[in-house]
């Protein structure tokens, strides 16, 4: 094995260690998600002032925008994990990539649905084929493609390899989604929140948004931990450490 990877990362990559660490991390991540989500949604739906032109209808951004960020973030994580899985054949990377796909697909679906609900009263239409909306829909299909391809193979690891390729190729769509509003004339507005620069939103609207973003990130971590643990048990069902886990669980 290469020596340039820190030892703790090597250890974490081994299924039994990850199983234990993920089990310890999960409740904390879930707690953080619930706490930040409650605070953020209260801040966004109750405390934040109404918008000068959209009134209360703009409040859907507290769901729509964090979900949209997650749809791209999870895809990036999935692509990176698929890359590691394909080149180094790390079993855990395969699991992370394949178990991220359904979570990412769910966030993408939420983004599309909330955007549609928002679009009808504000724009006057549920759907339009502009670059932002279309590329986000393509992102959903990429997620579904990865999930479908993974399950189309008898051998799970072979399926993960094929789906991993699709995940890596599809990563090109992520910058397209992000910059579609600057590259083309779209009905969808540009980015409000800028990491490197001035955000076009006052602080009392921005902090709940960032809070919900933190909640979605924590939820992803919690959900991924749980899914990866279950998957590892199934993948390594013949191994000693799984038998030990089963015996301890049964002894309780």
């Amino acid at each position, binding site marked *: 094995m290469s020596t*340039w990877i820190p030892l703790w990362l090597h250890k974490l990559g081994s299924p039994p260690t990850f199983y234990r660490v993920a089990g310890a991390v999960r409740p904390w991540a879930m707690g953080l998600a619930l706490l930040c989500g409650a605070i953020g949604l209260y801040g966004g739906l109750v405390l934040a002032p*109404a918008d000068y032109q959209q009134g209360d209808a703009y409040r859907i951004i507290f769901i729509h925008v964090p979900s949209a960020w997650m749809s791209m973030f999870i895809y990036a994580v999935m692509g990176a994990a698929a890359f590691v899985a394909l*080149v180094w054949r790390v079993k855990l990377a395969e699991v992370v990539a394949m178990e991220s796909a359904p979570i990412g697909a769910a966030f993408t679906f939420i983004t599309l649905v909330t955007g549609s609900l928002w679009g009808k009263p504000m*724009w*006057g239409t549920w759907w339009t084929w502009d670059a932002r909306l279309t590329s986000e829909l393509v992102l959903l299909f990429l997620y579904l493609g990865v999930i479908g391809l993974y399950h189309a193979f008898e051998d799970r690891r072979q399926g993960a390899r094929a789906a991993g*390729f699709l995940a*890596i190729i599809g990563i090109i769509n992520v910058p397209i989604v992000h910059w579609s509003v600057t590259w083309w004339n779209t*009905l969808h507005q540009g980015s409000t929140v800028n990491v490197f620069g001035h955000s076009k939103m*006052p602080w009392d609207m921005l902090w709940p948004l960032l809070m919900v973003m933190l909640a979605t990130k924590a939820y992803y971590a919690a959900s991924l931990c749980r899914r990866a643990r279950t998957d590892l048990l199934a993948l390594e069902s013949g191994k000693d450490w799984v038998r030990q886990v089963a015996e301890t669980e049964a002894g309780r």
Partner: protein
Amino acid sequence: MPMNPTRKRRLTLVIVIAVAAALAIGLGVYALQQNMNYLFTPSQVQSGQATPYKTFRLGGMVKAGSIQRSKDSLEVTFTVVDASGAMPVEYTGILPDLFRDNQSVIATGHMDGARFVATEVLAKHDETYMPKELKDAMAKAHADSKVKEAVAQDKSP
């Protein structure tokens, strides 16, 4: 960086495929650039850029004071302007909530002489959000008549 030959081969393969796919999609998107422009502005239409299309989208701002509603039908006429052009638009139907003076709109339709007949009118909003009080305070501070008009519209129900 010590790496065994198998991994090196896989790494090269994965990178080559990813780069090739990126290139193919990039070129495809670049080729579509012309068709992917969602709308034409009035000055683009007047300079003849929309002539190849029977139906297209027209985008711009609703000229303040140009909205005229028919008394006995849903017919409405207004003028869409951009920095250097103006285009009269005719539409029959229900308009979105945000439709008003100085609002960015996107109308789908076709040319009928010098007039644009729309089959759908969508309102576009920008990425700026602020409380109404802040907007009012800004409007007071600015002597800009356009902002004042927009706020006057905001206050009307």
